[in-house]
């Protein structure tokens, strides 16, 4: 089996200071070299992505006086996928006086990540969380408030304290608009150059340092090389490798994958979070899945028919022929078991042929009891907007017929490996937000991704990047530098290749098929056999892709299929690495469940003695087995325990 | 727009009240017309007062038409390519007819002045005999003139129903209550004005006045 990968040197240095965890960040900031404000103008920073991470970083760096060039593939920075986040953002403000603290948020996050995250990073995240809320309020983010005029909080993702700040069901939108507005202010001031509808297709490395990117203007098709003193990737997650996910259609791995191919380590690619309450697929036309707030599980009861292949309407199935399986298997947590457990249980009953709705991929989430108990008005007050969204999409009325839900891929914990400074192993290449691997370990807590994106962008990166730039400006390079020319022509060749294959299958059909393979073998439950099979399937499908794909049109125009082709080509390579990572990690932890590694009652079983490390993968040439570099994780403050929800 | 429109609305009110004097009797009505010409006396010489009103009105009309034209030209520039498929109204019906309504009103006013002020197009016009002029105008055999008056007055009604509400909004009205009130007032004003103006030709036609 080891022929799928080889093992290299472990990672020794993560740039984190040691000593007491509470003061590590302060000490790191103090030891960082500063850039003279007069010199900042002369330093150019490229930021790819305008989500919470990239938008806040570009705005802050622009404000600090650097010359910033910002890129996104949408038509406006405001449309980055952070806009879709619903639930909220965590912060250890302890406004509720319910015993919350920086330490508790730190503790919950390390534990929630199933002991696969770095303590120093997580502690810093919890510290900075407090400033995020202040910053956002000052910008005019309209968070929910109580009658006294103070900020409201709710509890989220199974924590005991109320530390989640929210703006109705549109928290991500409001936070992103705050960052977007700050960014637009810097654009108006001339500090940030904005390039919307530009897609990064290659990283430029000169003398071992990241010095620029190759981008394609998605309107004219023009390929250009953009040079800078440092490059920041904030390009989001790669959940779309599964084709169907809750991510936006354009979400991709291209920016980080291209960097990976140029030497940046890709860490923990197999950690994916699957969300249990999404609206199920309604047919083969389905193009993406929509998430519904997990809060629904507070009052809804999950069930399926006891008999396999029971196609009666929900109303015709008598009470004693229903299986409220979560309540049955997990009597103490019932319908409120954590995301991964709820998701896996749903898959299991559907695999037994007991799923409901089209294709049998769905379970009921029934509010009949709640309506009987609380009254329709109370249920409507609590969940009205979610019910409306559901009926808009499905055409069914959840007050009358039970909702159908099914798990869907939602978030990817893996990403480019970065050190404590958020710098990858390539000097000058920084990675922030969902695009990096840090902070969430094997599983992310609800409402913590928004927190991490803004922590990285507003507070962490602007400090650590300065330390790197203090040694700049780096020697000027021209567009005729061989490394620049090489990067550019490789992009051009790739585009020509796509356009010239002229086969008989569409890009989407390949993507859909790849998604099926991933969902089947690298989804909620993974086995050695399945993963090995998946790698074979992926390889042959990829070969077919490169010979049979049909990309219409030209390169020198708006060509949405050409864009997709590039993204899917990278997903193929990522998919293989995900399977290899999942295969090598012969334990279950967080979002990674290996069927071979479970307790007697079917719970995830970690193997801390063998796997308490970050798996950072190095690309060593196409077709060669990737090299694994391990970064050992030490837990000085929060001691590993096994979860149990029985 | 809103300011010139408001001046015009005030004038219309005054004009309607004047017109209603026709119900009081021939002498009174003619006297009223005469009084108009002595407006401001003895401070102002004969007809000066009336001319000041006329100038004020003309300025308002010109300002109103100029701003309406500017808006229309901007709208045209803002959408150089039209939709191939454009369904009926999605907002209010009155709102969509503002421009055409305005043009109808303009044509009407020109005709109307030539008709009842200068008498240019009036068959049996006599200066000073306003009462007779009006009665002759709406004689049953001249139904087409009456019809034109009616159509125009209704157009004025539509124009005002949206116009008044819109003017209030342009001047910053924003609360839900304010909006309800503005809508009600706009509707009331336009109905009162329309009814008031229409009552005259109606009365002449039915012989109530004559």
């Amino acid at each position, binding site marked *: 089996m080891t022929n799928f990968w080889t093992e290299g040197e472990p990672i020794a240095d993560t740039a984190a200071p040691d000593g007491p965890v509470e003061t590590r960040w302060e000490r790191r900031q103090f030891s960082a070299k500063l850039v003279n404000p007069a010199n900042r103008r002369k330093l150019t920073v490229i930021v790819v992505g305008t989500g919470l991470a990239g938008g806040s970083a570009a*705005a802050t760096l622009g404000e600090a006086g650097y010359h910033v060039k910002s890129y996104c593939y949408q*038509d*406006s920075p405001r*449309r980055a*996928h952070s*806009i*879709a986040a619903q639930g909220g953002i965590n912060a250890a403000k302890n*406004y509720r006086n319910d015993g919350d603290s920086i330490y508790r948020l730190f503790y919950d996050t390390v534990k929630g990540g199933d002991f696969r995250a770095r303590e120093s990073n997580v502690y810093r995240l919890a510290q900075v969380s407090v*400033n995020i809320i*202040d*910053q956002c*309020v*000052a*910008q*005019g983010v309209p968070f*929910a*408030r109580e009658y*006294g*005029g103070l900020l409201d909080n709710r509890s989220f993702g199974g924590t005991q304290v109320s530390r989640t700040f929210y*703006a109705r069901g549109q928290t991500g*939108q409001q936070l992103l608009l705050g960052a977007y507005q700050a960014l*637009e202010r810097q*654009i108006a001031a001339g500090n940030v150059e904005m390039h*919307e509808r530009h897609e990064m297709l290659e990283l430029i490395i000169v003398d071992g340092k990241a010095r620029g990117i190759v981008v394609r203007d998605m309107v004219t098709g023009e390929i250009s090389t953009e040079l800078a003193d440092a490059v920041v990737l904030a390009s989001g997650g790669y959940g779309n490798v599964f084709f169907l996910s809750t991510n*936006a*259609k*354009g979400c991709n791995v291209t920016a980080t994958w291209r960097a990976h191919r140029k030497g940046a380590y890709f860490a923990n690619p197999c950690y994916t979070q699957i969300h249990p309450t999404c609206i199920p697929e309604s*047919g083969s*036309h389905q*193009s993406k899945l*929509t998430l519904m707030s997990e809060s629904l599980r507070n009052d809804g009861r999950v069930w399926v028919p006891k008999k396999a292949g029971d196609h009666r309407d929900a109303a015709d199935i008598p009470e004693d022929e229903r299986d409220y399986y979560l309540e049955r298997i997990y009597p103490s947590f019932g319908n409120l078991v954590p995301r991964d457990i709820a998701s896996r249980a749903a898959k299991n009953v559907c695999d037994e042929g007991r799923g409901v709705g089209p294709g049998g991929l769905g379970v009921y989430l029934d509010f009949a009891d709640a309506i009987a108990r609380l009254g329709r008005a109370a249920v409507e007050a609590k969940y009205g907007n979610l019910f409306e969204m559901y009926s808009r*999409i499905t*055409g069914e009325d959840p007050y009358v017929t039970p909702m159908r839900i099914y798990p869907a891929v939602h978030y990817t914990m893996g990403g480019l490996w970065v050190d404590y400074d958020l710098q990858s192993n390539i000097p000058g290449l920084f990675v922030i937000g969902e695009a990096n691997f840090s902070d969430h370990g094997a599983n992310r807590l609800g409402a913590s991704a928004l927190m991490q994106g803004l922590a990285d962008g*507003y507070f962490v990166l602007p400090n650590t990047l300065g330390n790197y730039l203090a040694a700049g400006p780096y020697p000027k390079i021209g567009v005729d530098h061989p490394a620049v020319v090489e990067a550019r022509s490789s992009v051009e060749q790739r585009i020509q290749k796509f356009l010239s294959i002229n086969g008989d299958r569409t890009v989407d*059909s390949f993507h859909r098929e790849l998604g099926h393979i991933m969902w089947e073998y690298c989804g909620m439950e993974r086995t050695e056999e399945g993963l090995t099979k998946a790698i074979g399937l992926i390889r042959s499908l990829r070969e077919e892709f490169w010979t049979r794909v*049909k990309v*219409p049109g030209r390169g020198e*125009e*708006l060509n949405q299929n050409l864009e997709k082709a590039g993204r899917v080509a990278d997903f193929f390579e990522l998919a293989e690495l995900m399977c290899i990572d999942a295969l090598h990690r012969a334990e279950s932890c967080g979002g990674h469940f290996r069927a071979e590694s479970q307790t007697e009652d079917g719970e995830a079983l970690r193997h801390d003695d063998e796997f308490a490390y970050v798996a950072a993968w190095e690309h060593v040439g196409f077709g060669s087995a990737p090299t694994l570099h391990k970064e050992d994780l030490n837990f000085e403050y929060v001691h590993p325990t096994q979860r149990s929800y029985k | 727009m809103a300011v010139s429109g408001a001046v015009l609305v005030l004038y219309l009110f005054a004009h309607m009240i004047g017109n209603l004097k026709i119900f009081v009797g021939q002498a009174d009505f003619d006297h009223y017309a005469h009084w108009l010409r002595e407006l401001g006396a003895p401070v102002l010489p004969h007809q000066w007062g009336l001319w000041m009103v006329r100038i004020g009105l003309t300025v308002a009309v010109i300002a109103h038409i100029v701003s309406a034209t*500017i*808006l229309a030209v*901007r709208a045209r520039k*803002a*959408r150089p*390519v*039209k939709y*191939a*498929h*454009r*369904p009926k109204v*999605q*907002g*209010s019906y009155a*709102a969509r007819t503002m421009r055409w309504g305005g043009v109808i009103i303009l044509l009407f006013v020109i005709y109307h002045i030539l008709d009842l002020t200068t008498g240019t197009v009036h068959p049996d016009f006599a200066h000073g005999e306003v009462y007779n002029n009006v009665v002759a105008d709406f004689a049953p055999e001249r139904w087409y003139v009456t019809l034109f008056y009616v159509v125009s007055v209704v157009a004025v009604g539509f124009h005002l129903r949206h116009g008044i509400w819109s003017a209030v*909004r342009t*001047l*910053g*009205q*924003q609360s839900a209550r304010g*909006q309800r009130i503005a809508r009600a007032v706009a509707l009331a004003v336009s109905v009162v004005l329309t009814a008031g103006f229409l009552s005259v030709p109606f009365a002449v036609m039915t012989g109530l006045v004559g």
Partner: protein
Amino acid sequence: MNLKLRVWRQKGPEDKGRMVTYEVTDISPDASFLEMLDVLNERLILEGDDPIAFDHDCREGICGMCGMMINGVAHGPERATTTCQLHMRHFKDGDSIDIEPWRAAAFPVIKDLVVNRGAFDSIIQAGGYITAPTGTAPDAHATPVPKADADAAFEAATCIGCGACVAACPNGSSMLFTAAKVAHLGLLPQGQPERSSRVISMIEAQDEAGFGGCTNAGECTTVCPKGIPLNLIGRLNADYLKAVSGR
């Protein structure tokens, strides 16, 4: 379902463009409008035609990327719904549907149904923000905000910048979009210092960008997927009059 589509096809900004007819067959009523177009595009690609370009991203009604005139109505017949959230069950088998891009000088067509809405960003650049440099903020609880104001600000802030208001407005005016941002920031205590300068520069910016003037036609709010109410325009006017008279 089987449908007859007439779709605006335009190769690029310089092309004149025209309506082209397509028949689509076997569409599931559960498909979204964009998924229906996906199905058509898959077929066009295999037949060697150029697929129809249209903007979209989140497909859940929040990013504001999608949007097209469907039978002359921005985002189609369902109220308070973006194109991506419109489902085919709202159409009848055999219907013919006309699909056009947003039409406004400030939103030039890039290709087919894709337009450039950068003018919205320029309006925001003119003042649609609160100057709050990173790291200088006071504690979030330093200034309480009455719940009613916070809620009203939130409602206004839900605008997704889709441009349907402009597309529907007979004057091609961006007033509702601008009004929503002016109200969002103006309702919060943090937004007060820049309140006057903001409204003046944002109005100037929208005029400069080539949008038409608002005559309170009210069609914008009817198509707005987020139901941004018309009275925010009154609020903007009040702010504007106050700002210019105070200048």
